[in-house]
């Protein structure tokens, strides 16, 4: 059995490896070296590399993004972290008008923007309207950016290292509910190429495309569906831009059915893009209308009473697939297996964020 570590430890390892490999790399963010070390993801960094390279920063999301761009243009790779994606919205001008455009608007005559921005997605425990937004489709809309959303610890390490050593700005969206997920992770400089999805299960009845934490729910659903005799191609996108269309389209051509799951709202979502492209490319292979499963078209509420039905869960995936296939499937084993309240990922999570 290979070594198992958590998603948070995998991010920490990737950062350590990158900082060792590139002595000019800088690593900063609010709380970077505080006692909590960003949910444990930045532990040991300042001790290993010093305050010149690993530092806390002013509460200046926009300015610090531009500063990261500038430092990278002078050859210093930057890894910047935000404990919630929502705060990073203050920096959209720097991200969209500068980081994403720098290569293009200077006709490739500039130094590269070597910048990775870690954005943590909140969920549950009352994170509410402004601490739980999942805006991958905003970023993926912009040519010049790359966007990844790893689900498993090994992918987190591999995609973070590939992102850091890419010559372009990369948004690394990590779901707070994945930080404690354990899994096998290779030691050392383990990289996973950007733009390649992972096929987690092979089947012939339906293609499920998912990302980030929703892939965990989808895996539970796939197990129940398998028991009911439904075989699923489960694709974990890992990378949102570039998106692995070859894998997605080949699967849809094979199964003829598509369910696209998203951590965000349906309107203008990655799930919508997957459905649109797959429909356009695989129309003649489609056996039923493709579907999307997303959060509802309203902000995330705070009260646990209001939030209970906000996030789709494994049973919703099962019921959607059953509906698409016209079969009845009992979800009671899934519901019986739930041991945690709906607003936490497990016993390890005690809040507050």
């Amino acid at each position, binding site marked *: 059995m290979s070594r198992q570590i958590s998603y948070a430890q995998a991010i920490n390892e990737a950062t350590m490896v990158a900082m060792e490999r590139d002595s000019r790399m800088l690593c900063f963010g609010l709380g970077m070296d505080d006692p909590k070390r960003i949910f444990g993801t930045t532990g040991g960094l300042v001790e290993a590399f010093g305050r010149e390279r690993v530092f806390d920063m002013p509460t200046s999301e926009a300015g610090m993004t531009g500063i990261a761009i*500038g430092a990278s243009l*002078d050859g210093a790779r930057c890894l910047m972290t935000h404990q919630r994606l929502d705060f990073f919205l203050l920096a959209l001008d720097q991200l969209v008008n500068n980081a994403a455009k720098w290569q293009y608007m200077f006709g*490739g005559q500039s130094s590269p923007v070597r910048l990775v921005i870690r954005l943590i997605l909140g969920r549950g425990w009352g994170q509410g309207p402004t601490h739980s937004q999942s805006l991958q489709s905003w970023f993926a809309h912009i040519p010049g950016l790359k966007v990844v959303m790893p689900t498993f610890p090994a992918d987190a390490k591999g995609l973070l290292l590939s992102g850091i050593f890419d010559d372009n700005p990369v948004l690394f969206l990590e779901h707070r509910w994945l930080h404690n997920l354990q899994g096998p992770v290779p030691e050392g400089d383990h990289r996973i190429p950007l733009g390649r999805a992972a096929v987690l299960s092979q089947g012939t009845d339906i293609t499920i495309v998912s990302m980030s934490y929703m892939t965990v729910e989808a895996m539970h659903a796939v197990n129940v569906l398998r028991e009911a005799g439904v075989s699923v191609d489960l694709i974990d996108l890992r990378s949102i831009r570039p998106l692995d269309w070859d894998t997605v389209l080949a699967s849809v051509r094979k199964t003829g059915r598509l369910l696209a799951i998203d951590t965000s709202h349906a309107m203008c979502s990655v799930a919508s893009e997957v459905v649109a492209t797959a429909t356009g490319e695989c129309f003649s292979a489609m056996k039923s209308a493709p579907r999307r499963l997303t959060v509802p078209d309203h902000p995330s509420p705070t009260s646990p009473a209001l939030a209970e039905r906000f996030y789709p869960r494994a049973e919703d995936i099962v019921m959607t697939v059953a509906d698409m296939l016209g079969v009845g499937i009992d979800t009671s084993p899934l519901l019986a297996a739930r041991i945690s309240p709906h607003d936490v990922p497990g016993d390890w999570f005690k809040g507050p964020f």
Partner: protein
Amino acid sequence: MSLFDPTAAFPRRELLLQMKRLRGLEEAIAARYPEGQMRCPVHLSTGQEAVSAAVGLVLRPSDLAVSGHRAHIHYLGKGGSMPRMVAEIYGKATGCSRGKGGSMHLIDESVGFKGSTAIVGGTVPVGTGLGLSIKRRGTDQVACVFLGDAVVEEGVFFESVNFAVLHQLPVLYVCENNLFSVYSPLTVRQPTGRAIHEMVAGLGIPAAAGDGNNPEAVYAACREAVAGIRAGRGPVFLEFATYRWREHCGPHFDNHIGYRSEEEFLAWKDRDPVVTYQRKLLDVAAVTEADVAGMDQAVADEVAAAFAFAESSPFPPGCTAADDIYATGAIG
């Protein structure tokens, strides 16, 4: 800090020649813009040559600089290629940004000009980040950030200067206060009686103001500031009063449309930085009439050659429109 040391020597001929180059190029663009071959917005700096000429002469080629939308003469002052800039405005493949950027997106990394962009204040943090990297590399380079009076109304300005002060970064902020943001005067944007450099000094950065139409005043202030920055004494902010003669965007004069007066323009034109300085150098016999004529001819030749280069260059093939979205290999 003292702004002006009258005993120090100045590169007078270079200052005059450089201002003439900047004036000559901008006025040639204004003259030829109606031909319809420069098919992008242009923000001309006629009247503001003293700052770009002097700052450019104080900085070394190894120093770095960034700027905003009105950047032609910052780029030229820093040593950027004139033919490649004109070709960029013409949208040609030989342009400094290979036709992708136009007038508002200039770059020449070979002389340390790291880029100008169109969003007000957008490069202030970028220039500050250049300073962060320089400091970590431990050289005596300076990162120069050119900005206008409206930039100090943007949040990233404060965020950037705060960080530069906090980390004592080697950054020179050069603010050209030309009194207008498009058609909006300072009076509707900032409180009357509050000087920009005095407000900025409150952030903890040494800040001073000077006459932006006097190239020696600008040169002296920048020389002193840059010496301190190279010695590790942290960032400096300099504000220079000056005036853009032509419209915000385009080749015309616009004193008749109602947002500023002909009298105000004429008062500033009376203090034309190029003519005033030339007269001064002639008066003290630092240059001769023959020198001046030689400079004028050299500038006319250089500008004509730059336009000839641009006009004779090919357009980029349409199939390159999707190139350079991503960097594909290690450049720097």
